[in-house]
């Protein structure tokens, strides 16, 4: 049964693990939080050792046909847009590879015309000889449409539900295919069926009450551990950042509770990956790095062409599906990043914290992608 038809029952008739999570995310004093942090750290060391996987996002396009209140790429925003051409994508990837990255996440807004399946497949075929592990964070697709992308070497798929609260979801996603809550919620299972080996899920914290979001996220983890047992699961806890459109979080997740949630998830799910992006400031990232995080981005840009200035000569604004040429410094980012240290600086800091930055953890030869 797909998760969309199980979620409400999973929340009303909680599993023992969800009940445990609910207790762990209840208000806690400092001593209790410290105990949780110790347990979380111990479990993380046991299952992941003293290592941290590093990755970088590579934005392909900021075109989008969705209208989402909180996102900089929303079609309502009159921003400078671009879809990188293959050579430009390769130049960005070469830059990331030279910095050390052997694991990248290709990100794009949803636009079937500019960011088509064929385009993504071509990007993958161009990049996999250069980068051993390439994952995708793009609009949900049908299983059949994912299969060529897996064959082209895509290893992982990331899709965040944003909010698990259906009414809030409806209020945030005003138009476009993303309006369909269940289509998005069942995306990880479609991706698994197509053969993706790593699946990333998450909620965008700030849109709805964080404890409710956390329980639904955990319910999805439990579901996927059963239904997608061969996929490596990662969860991400992105908190809403400033972006074009000036949306303000209505239900903020404060730092202290953010740390509590991270530890609670680790305690309930010792073996899953936990991802932390550069949305968070350096001091917070350094604080939580040893506590339970297993995968970090570093030196990220959230605008297409952000690493090497690719695509500047074909910037435009997109109005009702038509591109109108425009000039500017570069394409707009999805959101403002907060930790702007270089990958090298992040790696050095991790070493100071007693963690080995792991750049390469996958070899494309395992799949022999043809």
């Amino acid at each position, binding site marked *: 049964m797909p998760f969309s038809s199980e979620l409400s029952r999973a929340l009303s008739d909680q599993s023992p693990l969800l009940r445990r999570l609910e207790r762990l995310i209840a208000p806690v004093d400092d001593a209790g939080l410290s105990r949780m942090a110790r347990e979380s750290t111990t479990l993380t*060391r*046991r*299952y*992941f*050792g*003293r*290592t941290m996987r590093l990755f970088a996002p590579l934005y392909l396009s900021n075109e989008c046909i969705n209208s989402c209140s909180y996102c900089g790429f929303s079609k309502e925003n009159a921003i400078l847009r671009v879809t990188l051409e293959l050579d430009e994508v390769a130049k960005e990837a070469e830059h990331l590879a030279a910095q*050390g990255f*052997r694991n990248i996440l290709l990100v794009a807004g949803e636009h079937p015309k500019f960011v088509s399946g064929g385009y993504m497949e071509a990007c993958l075929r161009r990049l996999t000889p250069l980068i*051993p592990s390439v994952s995708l964070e793009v609009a949900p697709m049908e299983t059949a449409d994912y299969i060529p992308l897996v064959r082209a070497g895509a290893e992982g798929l990331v899709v965040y539900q944003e909010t698990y609260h259906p009414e809030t979801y409806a209020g945030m996603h005003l138009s476009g295919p993303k309006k369909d809550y269940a289509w998005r919620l069942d995306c990880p299972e479609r991706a698994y069926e197509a053969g993706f*080996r790593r699946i990333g899920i998450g909620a965008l914290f700030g849109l709805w009450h964080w404890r409710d979001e956390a329980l639904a996220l955990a319910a999805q983890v439990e579901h996927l*551990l059963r239904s997608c*047992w*061969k*996929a*490596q*699961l990662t969860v991400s806890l992105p908190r809403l950042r400033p972006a074009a459109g000036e949306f303000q979080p209505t239900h903020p997740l404060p730092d202290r509770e953010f740390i509590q949630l991270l530890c609670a998830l680790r305690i309930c799910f010792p*073996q*899953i990956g936990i991802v932390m992006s550069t949305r968070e400031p350096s001091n917070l990232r350094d604080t939580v790095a040893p506590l339970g995080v297993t995968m970090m981005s570093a030196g990220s840009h959230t605008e297409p062409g952000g690493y090497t200035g690719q695509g500047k000569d074909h910037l435009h604004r997109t109005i009702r599906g038509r591109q109108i040429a425009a000039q500017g410094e570069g394409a707009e980012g999805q959101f403002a990043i907060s930790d702007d240290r270089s990958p090298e600086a992040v790696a050095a800091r991790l*070493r100071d914290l*007693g*963690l*080995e930055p*792991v*750049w*390469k*953890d*996958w*070899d494309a*030869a*395992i*799949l*022999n992608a043809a």
Partner: protein
Amino acid sequence: MSRTLKIAGREFSSRLLLGTGKFSSNETMRDALAASGTEIVTVALRRADLSGKKDPFANILDFIDPKKYLLLPNTSGAMNAEEAVRLARLAAAAGLPQWVKLEIHPDPHYLLPDPIETFKAAEILVKEGFVVLPYINADPVLAKRLQDIGTATVMPLGSPIGSNRGLETRAQIAMIINQATVPVVVDAGIGAPSHAAEAMEMGADAVLVNTAIAAARDPVRMARAFKVSVEAAREAVEAGLPTQLDHAEATSPLAAFLAAGK
């Protein structure tokens, strides 16, 4: 009782094998390997650069001296026989020893080995001339089936990888040891030197340790602790543990009496 460990005709004086994942740095790993006295070191191929381009961001092999250690490539990351066989061939083609620790775990969370795919891959690789050391659940029948097709060892798990729970499969490991015609290496779940000693005292030929050393506060000292513990337990076995003497003493007074009466 042999003092040395013999695998596929090669002799080793250390009975402690080490894994190389989860260390805080390659330097710490190198020092822990040295302190452990190990002679067999396993490396996940997915962490290494096999292209020959000397990738500075994937240089784990530079920290393992092939003159000091037998480098045992492992196929961690492979989900089925086909992928594991491909990785093993790739490693051999890249100039690594034609030995392979066969590790196929389709489930990335519990990392439990797939018996069916492991058997299939072992069959292929043994035929191709590889020395195959398969990582398996503590299943005595599977262990025998693998020995029948010519694997060089069997490597049953004590408990799931990283769990540090010790020999939860003790009863089945005992059966595997009793029936073994190749060395039995207890792999995974060994969280403390006492667990390693327990496996050795049961009659295991060797143990493989990774997390317990790599994740220790001081991996070098922990490596030494495991070295001492494995050596002590082996020494005890060779000296004749009181619990084992009952059936190990060939010439007891009773035996002599019975023989005389014939």
